[in-house]
């Protein structure tokens, strides 16, 4: 029993953190809002070179052969800078899905190799999300239909942009017609792959919103230290201290469930529903509280376009609802708890839970 990350995992995370902090800033995000795609292909190619997009791709297909646990700390860092590029979905959802299908369908193996080389981008849809993010820059789309998963090229689909309050998010409704030829998986296999995708997507969203929550608290602590009223820093006021302390309590106690979910997904994915839903719900609650308390501490300044807080706040609001909103995940937890055979209690923390 050892509930810590390895030194290697932490060092890798630190180096990615440094890279992201240098390359992704509120200024660079604001610049990207003005561009047509909202995306920075140069930055994407840098991430490809670092191996980030293919971290979970097996080595046989040109990836790093790592797992969900390895990526979770990085996803937190992506959230901390409010990264707009679809790195988390690519690494955590798209590539594991293609890897699972690569054995039986050579198209998937080819896509993996092209992805790992930075030659293409692939977007992914899921019933949990009405819309597909980053479909406009994708060369290929993985799309669900009932128990089926289809692969379509972008010129085979019709995209309608659906504008988000977060200018960094680019969402699309997708009209498409599948065929036997585009179908990659169906039946029990399709259901299992879609369920796994949902859990990986939710894990990635949860990790990002923890990073977002910490970023919001950090910038608010700085603001309340600099801003003076009644002749002293407003951060000396206990009311604001307690607002910030409450955010830290929620965020810190969302981390262990997040890491447990990542571990379970990497080791025993068929039993990860409970752990993932737990992580997603508590991460969402932490981020929503951080958004609310941080805008309050900023006063009117927090309500402006100019103040960077909204970059993080809007992403947190959006990701809290993506890959399963709180209602969806709480319902999974509730159903699980109502099963009289659910294994709960003090000695069951690390048991297989049902």
């Amino acid at each position, binding site marked *: *029993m*050892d*509930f*810590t*990350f*390895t030194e290697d995992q932490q060092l890798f995370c630190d180096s990615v953190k440094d890279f992201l902090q240098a390359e992704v800033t509120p200024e660079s995000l604001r610049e990207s809002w003005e561009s047509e795609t909202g995306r920075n292909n140069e930055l994407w190619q840098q991430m490809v070179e670092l191996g980030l997009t293919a971290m979970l791709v097996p080595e046989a297909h040109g990836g790093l052969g790592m797992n969900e*646990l390895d990526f979770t700390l990085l996803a937190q860092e992506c959230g901390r800078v409010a990264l707009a590029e679809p790195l988390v979905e690519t690494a955590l959802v798209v590539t594991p899905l293609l890897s699972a299908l690569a054995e039986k369908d050579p198209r998937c193996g080819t896509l993996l190799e092209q992805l790992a080389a930075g030659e293409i981008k692939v977007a992914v849809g899921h019933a949990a999300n009405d819309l597909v993010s980053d479909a406009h820059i994708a060369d290929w789309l993985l799309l669900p239909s009932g128990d089926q998963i289809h692969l379509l090229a972008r010129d085979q689909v019709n995209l309608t942009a659906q504008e988000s309050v977060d200018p960094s998010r680019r969402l699309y409704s997708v009209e498409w017609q599948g065929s036997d030829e585009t179908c990659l998986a169906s039946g029990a296999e399709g259901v299992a792959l879609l369920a796994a995708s949902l859990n990986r997507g939710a894990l990635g969203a949860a990790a990002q919103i923890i990073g977002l929550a910490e970023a919001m*608290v950090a910038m608010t*602590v700085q603001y*309340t*230290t600099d801003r003076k009223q009644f002749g*002293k*820093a407003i*951060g*000396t006021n*206990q009311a*604001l*201290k*307690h607002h*910030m*302390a*409450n955010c*830290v*309590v929620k965020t*810190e*106690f*969302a*981390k*262990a*469930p997040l*890491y*447990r979910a990542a*571990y*379970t997904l990497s*080791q025993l994915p068929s039993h990860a529903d409970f752990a993932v839903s*737990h992580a997603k*719900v*508590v991460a969402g609650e932490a981020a929503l509280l951080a958004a609310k308390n941080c805008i309050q501490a900023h006063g009117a300044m927090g309500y402006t376009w100019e103040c960077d807080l909204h970059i993080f706040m809007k992403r947190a609001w959006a990701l809290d609802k993506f890959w399963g909103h709180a209602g969806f995940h*709480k319902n999974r*937890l*509730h159903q699980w*708890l*109502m099963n*009289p055979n*659910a294994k*709960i*209690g*003090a*000695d069951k*923390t*690390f048991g297989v839970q049902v």
Partner: protein
Amino acid sequence: MDLNYTPEQLAFRQEVRQWLADNVPAEPLKSFDTAEGFEQHREWEKTLAKGNWGMVTWPKEYGGRGCNLIEWLIFEEEYYKAKAPLRVNQNGIFLLGPTLMEFGTDAQKARYLTKMASGEEMWAQGWSEPGAGSDMAAIRSKAIRDGDEYVINGQKVWSTRAVFADWVFCIFRTDPESERHNGLSFIFVPLDAPGVTVRPIPQLDGLPGFAEIFFDDVRVPVENRLGDEGQGWHIAMATAGFERGLMLRSPARFQETAKRLVELYRNHQNDILDLSIEDAVVKSFMNAEAYALSTYQTASRLMKGGKIGAEASLNKIFWSELDQSMHETAMSILASRAELLPHAPAAGDVDNWLDGFLFAQSGPIYAGTNEIQRNIIAERLLGMPRK
């Protein structure tokens, strides 16, 4: 990261489980805030000690088993699962014990730890004073050096278990000219010493769970001081770290409460009208689970040489508010029967939820109020400005 128990840890769990199955009293003991219940609990501590289960993390020479923190968590899980009696000596074993281990001389460790683990000596805590609650640095009670003794005068209050305990560990001002955090010392006083008067204070349940202690020219030998003269504040902060952080409230207690809450909810699911209860039950379970996971994380980190600092304040807020909300939820489910004492003819399945609910009200207050903890988080973890 490896979230599997080793074969040795699984075997340890079995050993604990078996011993508890053979030894936990079939009938619940009376409250340790009654004279009779206190002695029953003292006997239980002695039973634990006979099996060397008094404090499993302590070194063998002091009556422990030299277990690591993961094994301690396993022990606690089995302990609460077996519904074993609450630890009447918790002030001793969970707070003073670790403090003695860090600051005590070899002679003090041999003298006090052994009798603590054996159940012979029960401890109370004497820190707060009428004028020094959250502002503990305002302590005024004095221990003035006179040769090889200290002469103690003053008053302590809210001393948990002091009514029936044998000893109290206190903070006194040993330098009468000093102010605030300076000039304080950490001193042990036998509660039967001449000049000590203990006045019981009934708590919400009517039982004397804490007391006022008056010191009137009480003399104790200098050897009763822990650490150096004037080091009292520093030592007390370490004790508070144990209290708020890892030791005092292991997650098992809350996980078992959450389990009972889920069961209570399942049994009453069809007659619950309040729509918020379903959400509260799910949240209670998630938070108890999160506290357990987080504690395993902390234990793993400490075993690799990490330290626990101001983040102990996060724990204290989390477990105390979790306990409060779980009991509030149970009371909502029990609805109009929630106020009934268990022996009332119409009480039905109220079990001991009311007792737990009352006690849960104290959680955000003792061991430093949650408001003080939030100040600590803001100032020491986040670095927000003090003034």
